[in-house]
């Protein structure tokens, strides 16, 4: 009789132990999943904030206005006097490619600016206008093509 009672108590104790162990396990799994799906939860306590800033800084300082072989890499504009004034005023609305693929004299660059001011919401450039126009006329002047150019830049290949 006593043995039977003891046995029952023992089974109950094991049962409770297992139950609490499983309970704990379930809570752990739940917590883990919760963190996995809500990575923001421990953001402030996390170590990432500092490193994130560092990562950004590298991009900003080293690459943003890098110049290679006389070309401002980010825009493709020629590195010359007035470059950053052009970058800051002429690449907000449209790509710099619209500048670099065109060739005009002073009068026509100025009239292009006027057209943008009249119809495209370009602001008054003030004293920057002279800087910009000088940059454009010096670096992107018209080229003589005549009535028809010869075929250029041909990539020769063997036709099979």
């Amino acid at each position: 009789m006593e043995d039977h009672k003891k046995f029952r108590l023992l089974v109950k104790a094991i049962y409770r132990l297992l139950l609490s162990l499983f309970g704990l396990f379930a809570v752990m799994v739940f917590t883990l999943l919760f963190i996995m799906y809500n990575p923001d939860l421990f953001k402030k306590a996390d170590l990432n904030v500092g490193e994130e800033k560092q990562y950004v800084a590298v991009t900003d300082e080293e690459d943003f206005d890098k110049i290679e072989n006389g070309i401002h890499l980010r825009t493709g504009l020629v590195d010359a006097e007035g470059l950053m004034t052009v970058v800051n005023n002429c690449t907000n609305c449209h790509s710099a490619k619209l500048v670099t693929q065109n060739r005009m004299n002073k009068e026509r660059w100025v009239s292009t600016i006027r057209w943008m001011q009249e119809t495209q919401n370009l602001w008054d450039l003030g004293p920057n206008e002279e800087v910009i126009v000088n940059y454009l006329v010096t670096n992107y002047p018209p080229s003589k093509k005549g009535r028809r150019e010869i075929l250029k830049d041909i990539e020769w290949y063997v036709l099979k």
Partner: protein
Amino acid sequence: MKRRNFVKKAVLGTMTSVIGAEIVFGTTLPNGYIPLGLQDPDPFKMFDKDRGMEVLNDKPWNIEAKAHLLDDKITPNSSMFIRNNGLIPENIDASTWTLTIDGESVKQKKTYSLSELKSKFPQYTYQLTLECGGNGRSEFDPPAKGNQWTVGAVSCANWTGVRLRDILADVGVKEDAVYIGYHATDVHLSRDPNKEPISRGAPMQKALQDETLIAFQMNGKDIPLAHGYPLRLVAGGWPASVSGKWINRISVRNVVHDGTKMTGDAYRVPCNPVAPGEKVKDEDMCIIESMPLKSLITYPKTGATISTGKTLDIRGHAWAGELEVSKMEYSIDFGSTWRECTLDKPANRLAWQHFRASVDFPKKGYYEVWAKATDTRGNSQPMLLPGWNPKGYLNNACHRIAIKVI
């Protein structure tokens, strides 16, 4: 875990610095999803274009094909040029898309849903040539302002839709109607919501042609986003700017439509010929209607070397705006002598026509194969640049490829 979070945050940090603003809800971005503002770097992937295409401008997007990429009889999306005046609209919902017909010359204003358009009117499919008015601009001297297109701003795909004339008949048009003008959802470069990047149109006579479609399919599928999804106007044979993309409104006007890029020197040429570089007053500029006669050698690609005695098979397409091409010729001696090509009839009116020829070269050396089309009125393509105009439109000088016989 920590590592993954760190990588995600670091990447987000970089994205934030590139975009110049915090990405709200950044950490809940689905994995593998790239924010729209960052999709710019690979236009070929974004627009599903051949990597041989040339990006002329990335804001707004302007991309052209090369002659050899246009070899297909029906232009696939992969080699279709992209011409934009503004920014491509975002968050398009075709299920709520509507087309409104209004203007001074409608009897009543009427709005159709996309499904109404598809069910109410008979559908038609035409193969239609769309060429940018400025195709070939890069050759003008003095140079003309704008995207410097070479030869690849032309396409001829199958377009499916309903006839604009059927819609206009359903709406009811007054007798004083002279022009239609489209309005669309693309965004002005300055992001000013009160400005339209482009709003052009066509005279009633063109609007009422059988082939002028309000299209919802290109080559049997939904129109790709960059080409006007979910609805665009297609007016073959005219400057492609008439074929407005992402349209949600068409105004029937009792005056020549005066929307953006209809006035000044946009899509206009001097009414009377001028000397290169000459100043032309606005009132002396006339709106371009039909595109001129033109052709393109699409095979072989320029730069081919072949061995002596070998016959070279060439082929390509020719088109003539509102007209048809009646004769196609080629020359290997800079236009001294011409030989005729085999020329197919168009699949339908306003579709380009295919030509082919077998070319023999007399001896070793450098050659240029020149192509020249003649239309049903007897006009031929010029060998040199045609009349100079301030914006560099309508260059239909003959196409040339270089060949070396060794």
